[in-house]
């Protein structure tokens, strides 16, 4: 079953009188449990596509099916609820709340869930999540007291607190050295294989893309190639929509 299906998605920005097409008809199908890397030259529209996939933005045209639901026509409140329940985000610059402890950072998305956990339960769940990313002994630390890799792991814990089926990461290792990048990527692989979380990440780094099971190359708003990384021997069908 397809978890995500894009049908001729277009995105055009209007700069005054000039229309700037950024995505020019993207069709794509992603199954549950994939670990997918999105690569391509700068300005090719990767982040724009990610924002649409992540329900932060709406396409100018085309259909977006997520979990058998058409997304592109939803209101911003409905999209916010969807993001809260089904999608997790990891950013290049971590985006942790300053002067807020790791555990409170991780628990933050819970305050926007409909189920309304009590303060104690929320903290308990946040502590569990931090333990899973290997930071059980850093609960009370502020972001300024954590290394870059640790901060990104806090961010991953935050993204996973609502147990979403999909995790989006826009250049998650862009601010990390190669060793900590490797740690973060191994964590992604573990989450993908052990918990079956679908992970979609944007990267420039071929080494990072090498960890993915499927790599999509974009150029100038279209998909150039959609394949397993070199040497893996697997082939995934590209351009999901017939």
């Amino acid at each position, binding site marked *: 079953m397809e978890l995500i299906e894009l049908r001729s998605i277009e995105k055009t920005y209007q700069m005054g009188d000039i229309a700037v097409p950024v995505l020019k008809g993207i069709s794509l199908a992603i199954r549950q449990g994939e670990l997918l890397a999105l690569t391509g030259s700068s300005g090719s529209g990767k982040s724009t596509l990610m924002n649409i996939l992540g329900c*932060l933005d709406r396409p100018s045209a085309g259909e977006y099916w997520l979990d058998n639901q058409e997304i592109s026509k939803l209101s911003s*409140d409905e999209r916010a609820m969807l993001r809260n329940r089904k999608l997790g*985000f990891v950013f290049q610059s971590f985006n942790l*709340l300053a002067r*807020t402890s790791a555990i409170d950072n991780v628990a933050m998305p819970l305050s926007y*869930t409909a189920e*309304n956990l009590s*303060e104690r339960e929320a903290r308990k769940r946040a502590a569990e999540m931090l333990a899973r990313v290997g930071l059980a002994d850093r609960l009370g630390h502020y972001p300024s007291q954590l290394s870059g890799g640790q901060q990104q792991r806090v961010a991953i814990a935050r993204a996973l607190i609502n147990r979403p089926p999909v995790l989006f990461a826009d250049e998650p290792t862009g601010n990390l050295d190669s060793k900590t990048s490797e740690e973060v990527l191994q964590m992604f692989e573990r989450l993908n294989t052990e918990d079956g979380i679908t992970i979609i990440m944007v990267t420039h780094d071929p080494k990072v893309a090498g960890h993915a099971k499927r790599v999509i190359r974009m150029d100038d708003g279209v998909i150039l190639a959609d394949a397993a990384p070199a040497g893996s021997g697997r082939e995934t069908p590209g351009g999901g929509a017939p």
Partner: protein
Amino acid sequence: MRLYATARTAFRALRRNPMRAMLTTLGIVIGVGAVIAMMEIGAGSSATLKKTIASMGANVLVIQPGTASSGGVSFGAGSTTTLTPEDSQAILRECPAIRNATPMVRARTQVVYGNRNWVPNAIYGTTPAYLEVQNWSILAEGEPFSERDVLNGNRVCILGQTLVRELFEGASPLGKDIRIKNIAFRVIGVLTPKGANMMGFDQDDVILAPWTTIKYRVTGASLSTSNQSTDATASTSVNTLSNLYPATHGTLYPEQSAAQQADNPMPVRFANIDSIMAAANNSGEISMAIEQITGVLRERHRIRGDDPDDFNIRNMAELTKTLSTTTTLMTNLLLAVAMISLVVGGVGIMNIMLVSVTERTREIGLRMAVGARGRDILRQFLVEAVVLCLTGGAMGIILGHGGSLLVKFLLHWPVETSPAAIAAAVLVSAGVGIIFGFYPAWKASRLDPIEALRYE
């Protein structure tokens, strides 16, 4: 519970910059403090004023005969004699807004006891109802005269404290006879002290007696209502008592049979009185009472259509209103200044909230990315502004209350703690938070998550 969590988040956000929060809220602190202090001091002085007014008889209406004029020359209020005791009774009977009414006759003449004499401010001829009208029913000594004394024209009187002091040098006057225009009056009661009224008029410098006695024995002719103290010096020349008062006691007004009344609808006028004093049920009904009295008297006096009244109605409310208006004006003026301070404080809040929204653009973007809706962001910033204002309001209440206590102990001004003012202060500061916090919060809620996340 959600609100509680939001409030906690707001506190945490404010604690990140306590100094800035303090300075921001200073305007609210000062504004609320000023409001509280003004309200408490204002409430204190208006309570004192109310007490003073109550001692003067706040609900009292005085009905005087109208102005006589002849060829364009007005003779001033009271220059005609149009009021009768029956008018007083009719007012009491027919005006629902009137609690009590009493006819009044006024004299001003010398009073003698032994070898001492004194000219009191006023000698009032009235009925026992006067004491009730004036809230003066409790006497210091003795007892009031009765309706029977009024009907019989008995020579009894009640003295004010000033007379006790002047004539009796403080000794008890009960049972003693004083002489007014050579007529002996038995003192049967002494009024409680009331002090000076707001114009400095000594309210204790009075003698009360049955109006019939004053009317027929002291002032003599019904038309002579003028100041009598001048001819009092020549008192020897007047008063061969027997021909001045009616020989028959008991009924001053001959009973009319129903047939007589039908035959002769114009009431026979037996006596003119100087004024009628009436008490309204409460100060709120004064204007209604005036209307009703006007109606009754116009009908009784057969005044038609547009003809002017032959009487006029004065009430203390006019006077007390003027006096209380002055204090209210002062309080309101200061309140207005306090309100301006609150508005200035609110603008300060708005300014800082706008700065805060800009500073935390990325945080807002992040919160939106993890599922905060526009209204969640709106509420977060609104709660933050309200928390800021309420904190300021709480400090302001403490400051203002402390200030008014200081005024009480240092200047001995009357001060009254007012829970309403405190409740108002809490509401106002929360209101300021909502009003001035709304725009920044709304702005935050309208941010686009992608742009907010990208914001440097």
